[in-house]
């Protein structure tokens, strides 16, 4: 091979493109697996087997669903703002892909090492709510508008305790680089920040469920109230992209939680990537389990939970961490 090509391979841009391609593959594959896991877990929670007939134990069911979604006609309702309407699903999906870049899957497999990796994830995941507003506004549907309004208030309310809980960990580790934060934790549970600072872990988990709009905090799409909320009017892959973005966001928050609180790739005996994926999938199953178990909270209860409980608790936790770090360090 021409040695000049090898030089190009080490270029940051090449790494970025290669990383993005791998991430697309990762999201696509995990999206399919997660749909299957979600339906299977839901099925077994609900006294039924879940998908069973397409492939062994219904494994190919998500693939068939995806083909169906791709094959469907894309319809934009009359009176909708066409540009915003079609930009919204793309905008929902794009930030999700960027958020994967700083995730450390393994000591040797981190798509991009950034010393501000955590900030990048928080910034781009905050962008996701923009797509919900555009979807709700652009589709010229009153249910969509109500869903979008809910999404904004919810996102603002839960980003505050989320940031505070993340900052507490960053302060303990003394870094905003997820790779370094992971490296500072050990292989055993008592060395994890989730065990050292369980309050921050709890707050992060609750906020993560709220930020990804999953039940019991799925108010922007609250099916039984707003029919489907912000994505009421979307069909085919328009809906499919929102769906995929939701799963991608779930993987991101679980990945960040695993790296911040559960020691990321750290674990005894087995390779790092294995431990990372095990932790991520345990958290994902926990989120799925929540969805199929609890009723949905009401909107004012949701905001009360954030402003009256989680934010003060997160502040308290942050203050404690600051005091401990001040005396210890």
């Amino acid at each position, binding site marked *: 091979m021409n040695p000049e090509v090898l030089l190009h391979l080490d270029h940051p841009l090449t790494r970025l493109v290669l990383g993005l391609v791998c991430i697309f593959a990762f999201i696509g594959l995990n999206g399919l697996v997660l749909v299957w896991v979600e339906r299977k877990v*839901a099925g077994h929670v609900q006294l039924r087997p879940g998908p069973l007939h397409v492939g062994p134990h219904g494994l190919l069911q998500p693939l068939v669903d995806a083909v169906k979604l791709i094959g469907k006609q894309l319809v934009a309702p009359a009176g909708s703002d066409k540009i915003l309407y079609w930009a919204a699903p793309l905008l929902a999906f794009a930030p999700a892909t960027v958020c994967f870049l700083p995730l450390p899957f393994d000591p040797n497999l981190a798509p991009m090492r950034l010393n501000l990796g955590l900030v990048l994830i928080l910034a781009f995941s905050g962008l996701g709510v923009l797509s919900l507003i555009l979807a709700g506004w652009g589709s010229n549907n009153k249910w969509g508008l*109500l869903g979008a309004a809910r999404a904004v208030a919810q996102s603002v309310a839960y980003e505050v305790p989320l940031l505070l809980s993340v900052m507490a960990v960053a302060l303990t580790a003394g870094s905003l680089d997820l790779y370094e934060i992971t490296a500072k934790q050990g292989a055993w549970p008592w060395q994890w920040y989730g065990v050292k600072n369980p309050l921050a872990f709890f707050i992060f988990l609750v906020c993560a469920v709220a930020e990804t709009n999953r*039940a019991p905090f799925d108010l922007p799409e609250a099916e*039984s*109230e707003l*029919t489907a909320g912000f994505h009421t009017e979307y069909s085919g892959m328009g809906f499919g992209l929102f769906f995929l973005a939701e799963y991608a966001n779930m993987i991101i928050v679980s990945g960040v939680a695993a790296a911040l609180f559960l020691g990321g790739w750290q674990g005894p005996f087995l390779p790092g990537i294995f431990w990372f994926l095990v932790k991520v999938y345990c958290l994902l199953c926990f989120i799925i389990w929540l969805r199929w178990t609890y*009723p*949905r*909270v009401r909107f004012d*209860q949701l905001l009360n939970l954030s402003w009256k409980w989680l934010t003060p608790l997160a502040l308290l936790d942050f203050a404690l961490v600051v005091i401990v770090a001040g005396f210890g360090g």
Partner: protein
Amino acid sequence: MQAFDPKTLRGDLSAARFEPGPTEDKLILSMGPQHPSTHGVLRIMLELDGEYILRAEPILGYIHRMHEWMAEQKTYMQFMPNMGRVDYLHAMAWNWAYAGAVERLSGIEVPQRAEYIRAAVTELNRISSHLLWWGAYLLDLGAFTPIMYAFDDREMLLDILQDVTGSRLTYSYFTIGGVYGDVPDNFASRCLAFTRQLRSRLPMYRDLVTDNVILRGRCEGIGEMDVELARRYGATGPVIRGSGAPVDTRRAEPYGVYNRFDFRIPAYPQGDAMARYMVRMDELETSCDIIEQAVANLPDGPITAKVPKTVKPPKGEACFAVEGARGKIIVYVRSDGGPKPYRVKLRAPGFSNLSVFCELSRGTLLADAVSILGSLDLVIPEIDR
């Protein structure tokens, strides 16, 4: 929404009548007739300020099938299958109300065995109705799983009813003067097995669902209604019992053999959605009590009275009231002596219960309105008839 234009007959008549209020920044929202929480084809026009409801107005008629008119075109017996379609969830109660009215009009005495079978299957049907309500209500509140457990219980029950009546939902098992067919030999043991199974499940439902903090938050203090309001609107059944008045047709004007059963009438004084919820959950146990007593005392004998092929009640009128799963069902029959009824009037409890909704939902959040609507346990085909 396009306003109704009388020249072209296009647009939306109901929306055109629903004028926005005098203030700015109000949203007129049409909830239904296709909406996940309006249970069928109810349509509610809402005037919203943000998510707060300023005004709510139910619009009916999307599933009007002219049952009362149909009664005038059919003989007395031919009208019986319609009764299973009025309220498809508690078809037996409607069966009973119509059969009872015609029997009262023609002075037919129903044999004892038939009366006991009627009581048993009506209570079984009430349980299936309440279980479905329970699952659907929690679905409205965003809990997906309980309905599957409710359907699991219901499955066992529907199997029993299928073997007795031949159908699983729209029963027309009653006949004028009794019931169509006798129950199978293992009916009593299967009923007892079912009540045992349900009673063993109820504590789990209480722990996992009823005492859930989110559910309590969504139901307690929501849609509060005092007895006066309930009486003013003619609310009956679990809705008025949830306001603290233990009113029950089975006790107030006993029909069939209900005066021989020992059962409790649950009532909760809070008047909110949770009280109505608790009443229905308690009624599951009450119905189990009645079923157990009915199958234990099931007498031998004929299952139908001697009734002529063509029922021709004498000139006159009769009313028959029955306690349905949703409240007091009344069927009024007027005869001119011919083979067809001169007039049949059906009083559906859901209609009165729905009327309270306008008053209860005012000033609440959209999510609360869904909760209130669910707690009224509406079956729209019954309301529209």
